[in-house]
């Protein structure tokens, strides 16, 4: 008999947690809390595989809770419930909470069940990895020298990237998605720095396909503007590692890129962890021919990483 995964629901509205409890108690060990503090108590005392938290709560916001949970229990998959578009909170939950998914209120029960199941399975299969607990960068795999790809027509010509990151990593520049694909085919890239649009094209599709095929490649998104819906997609469909709004301070960018690179090395060190980088299948038309052609062009890259791809 397999152990029941533990799921923790946090919302200041008791009716919400009661409902979620009813929904999940058959298959999970369900815990609940109506405040961030209560949730932290539970996380500290027992193993929690998945935490689903509301954003707006008295005392501690969902973002803060998830950021703390990440530190206390890095193996716990973190899901944020948002009922109210709060851009700053969402950006915070990407950069500090490193969350797995955003879920909009009101949710769809089936989708919620599927999401929690997926998260619980991922947690069960990965939380034993020692790499997860480590905040230190894993030593680079032998022979691997991952580089940085700057895919942004506005900043790629900026010599700063080369000057700043050059000593540590190879830095490549691309002006368009096509350029980027060429670089990705030929080079070992660990981190992609990009904007939401390059050369008039959305980068989200590329990032999603890239994440599907090569979850170890981390993305740092630098954008001038994004609404909450776009930010939601960045996480749910492309697992963007860091998000900053332009103009970005160099110090902040340095930290973001290095954190992304650390994640990249960690996932390369323990390929089982890449399941934690799984992206949601996007609905319908977005699985377009464009996505397929992107995927086919990216086929060759996998060999470099020496592990099988899941598709």
């Amino acid at each position: 008999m397999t152990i029941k995964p533990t799921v923790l629901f946090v919302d200041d509205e008791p009716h919400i947690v009661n409902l979620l409890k009813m929904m999940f108690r058959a298959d999970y060990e369900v815990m609940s809390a109506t405040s961030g503090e209560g949730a932290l108590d539970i996380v500290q005392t027992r193993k929690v595989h998945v935490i689903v938290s509301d954003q707006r709560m008295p005392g501690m916001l969902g973002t803060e809770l998830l950021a703390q949970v990440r530190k206390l229990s890095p193996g716990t998959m973190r899901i944020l419930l948002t009922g109210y578009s709060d851009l700053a909170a969402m950006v915070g939950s990407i950069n500090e909470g490193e969350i797995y998914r955003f879920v909009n209120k009101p949710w769809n029960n089936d989708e919620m069940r599927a999401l929690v199941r997926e998260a619980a399975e991922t947690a069960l299969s990965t939380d034993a990895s020692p790499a997860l607990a480590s905040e230190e960068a894993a030593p680079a795999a032998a022979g691997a020298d991952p580089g940085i790809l700057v895919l942004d027509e506005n900043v790629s010509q900026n010599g700063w990237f080369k000057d700043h990151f050059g000593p540590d990593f190879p830095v490549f520049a691309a002006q368009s998605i096509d350029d980027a694909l060429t670089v990705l085919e030929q080079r070992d890239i660990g981190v992609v720095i990009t904007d939401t649009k390059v050369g008039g094209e959305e980068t989200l599709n590329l990032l999603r396909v890239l994440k599907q095929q090569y979850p170890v490649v981390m993305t740092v998104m630098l954008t001038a503007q994004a609404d909450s819906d776009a930010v939601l997609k960045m996480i749910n469909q492309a697992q963007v590692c860091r998000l900053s709004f332009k103009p970005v301070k160099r110090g902040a960018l340095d930290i973001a890129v290095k954190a992304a690179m650390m994640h990249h090395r960690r996932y390369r060190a323990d390929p089982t962890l890449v399941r934690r980088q799984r992206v949601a299948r996007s609905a319908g038309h977005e699985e377009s021919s464009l996505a397929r052609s992107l995927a086919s062009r990216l086929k060759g890259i996998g060999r470099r990483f020496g592990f099988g791809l899941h598709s």
Partner: protein
Amino acid sequence: MTRNQVLSAAIGIGLVSVLAFLVVKTRSVDFDAHNEIISTLRQLKQLDAEWNADVLRSKTGFNTNYDPVASPLPLIARLEATFQERTTAVLGSGEDGSAVTSAIDAYKKAMQTKIALIENFKSQNAILRNSSRYLPVAAHDLSAAVAGTAADGATKSRTDALVNQLVTGAMTYILTPDGSLRSSVTEKSASLGELSNKFAPELREQAELFGSHVDTVLRQQDAGDKLLTELTTLPTAARIDALTDAYNSEHDQQLIAQQNYRLALIAYSALLLAGIAWLASRLFKSYRLLRRSNASLKKAHDDLKESQTYMVQSEKMSALGQMVAGIAHEINTPLAYVKGTIDLLAEQIGQIKGLARTSYTLTRLMREQADKATVKQHFLELEGVARQTIDGNVVEEMGSLLETGSHGIGQISEIVLNLKNFSRLDRAKVSEFNVQEGLDSTLLLAHNLLKNKVRIEKEFDDVPPITCSPSQINQVFLNIISNAAQAIPDGRMGVLTLRTSQVNEDTVCVEIQDDGDGIPSDILPKIFDPFFTTKEIGKGTGMGLSISYKIIQEHGGRIEVNTEPGVGTVFSIELPVKPNQDSSAAETFEDDLLLAA
């Protein structure tokens, strides 16, 4: 009046005075008066000449009476009076030293002398006339008396001859006063005197009387001659001529002066005209300037009005947007679990459906008296389903889910009710309004903004309902309460205190106090200004408090703010229980906003 106005008025009066002075001066020469004076003088001269002739005639005895001699006097006096009057009118009185005045004085002196002389002459001549008239009578009497005496014939004839010669001589002397004749007459008179010595005393007396008449004739004739000589040498005509000349020259001078004044007037008028033209051009210029700046002001005003309209609208929209977002969140939470509940219920329906279906199948089989094995199989199936349902607490769960769902719907209804209470759009614009209810419904509406951030403390005194526009007053409450929530720094629980009290029987006071950052003194005076905001660009329109201020003002109330940086802020709103005189104020404002929208 300002200094400038006084100065302008003085300059204006000065200019007009100069103009008036010049106009009067150009009109000062009175030609009628002048002509009258000249003709009066001519008449005087003529009269003087005629008078001289009359005097001569009187002397020569052509005129037997003296009326002509005396008659010009009143006429002269009248003419002189007329002249004097005109002269005074023309020259002005008291103008001494001028040529005319001295000429007048000279004329008057001459004329007075002449009048005195003529008077004298008249009396002298009267005596002469009297003696000359009596002389023949006296001669006749003497001759008759002598003839009647006893004197010798020679004496008698000698006396007659002497008397006749004396009468003839005296009479001739009157006509032609001649020196030789006079000595002859005097000689003969002396002879008669000697001769009369021989006469009787009465006769002698008569002869002496006759002699004295002869002497009188001679003497008076001489005196008359002397007076006439004097008269003829009197320069009255010359004086009149001199006066006329003086007057004419004076007149000429006046004409020249007038001419000069006229020139001055023309020059002055030209100057004034030029000045007026300059002023007019300046006026025109400033008019054009004024019109230009007026046009640009009007444009600026229109632009401002337009942008104010826009800002009022965008404030409404931004407040509305915030409210809508807040309400969306408020509704979203119950909505989320209502939806979850219903989805779950739909899933559980399957269980109940299974129960019903297996029960029905079993009862049907039993009624049909089916074989035991089949019935037992179905019986076991039903038992399993029923146990599953009971063990899974499905019915209780459904009950609890229904309860949750109905609770959620209740919450949503409550929010909608609050919205209705807040907007009051379904009620009259102006109605009785309980400020405490208004504060409560505003708090519920702002719940999203306030929860987890502030603790609400209510200190409500009983206050009477006020007559106002509830939606507008609620708008003010919402504005100040949301500002208060924003004034409380993140990361700590603030306290929002709401107070109601009755100031007096006509006034209700609402206080909204926070313990936030307070308002810095440098921006305090500006908080009610339109477009003033401390929020980031795009976050606030800066119209909230200015609209609130206007709403309270339109209601005849007052809004005041007391703040202490670091301690907090309190907004006090005083509202009249009954709107004073103008109950349409709120309506007016509503119209304003409608117009703005």
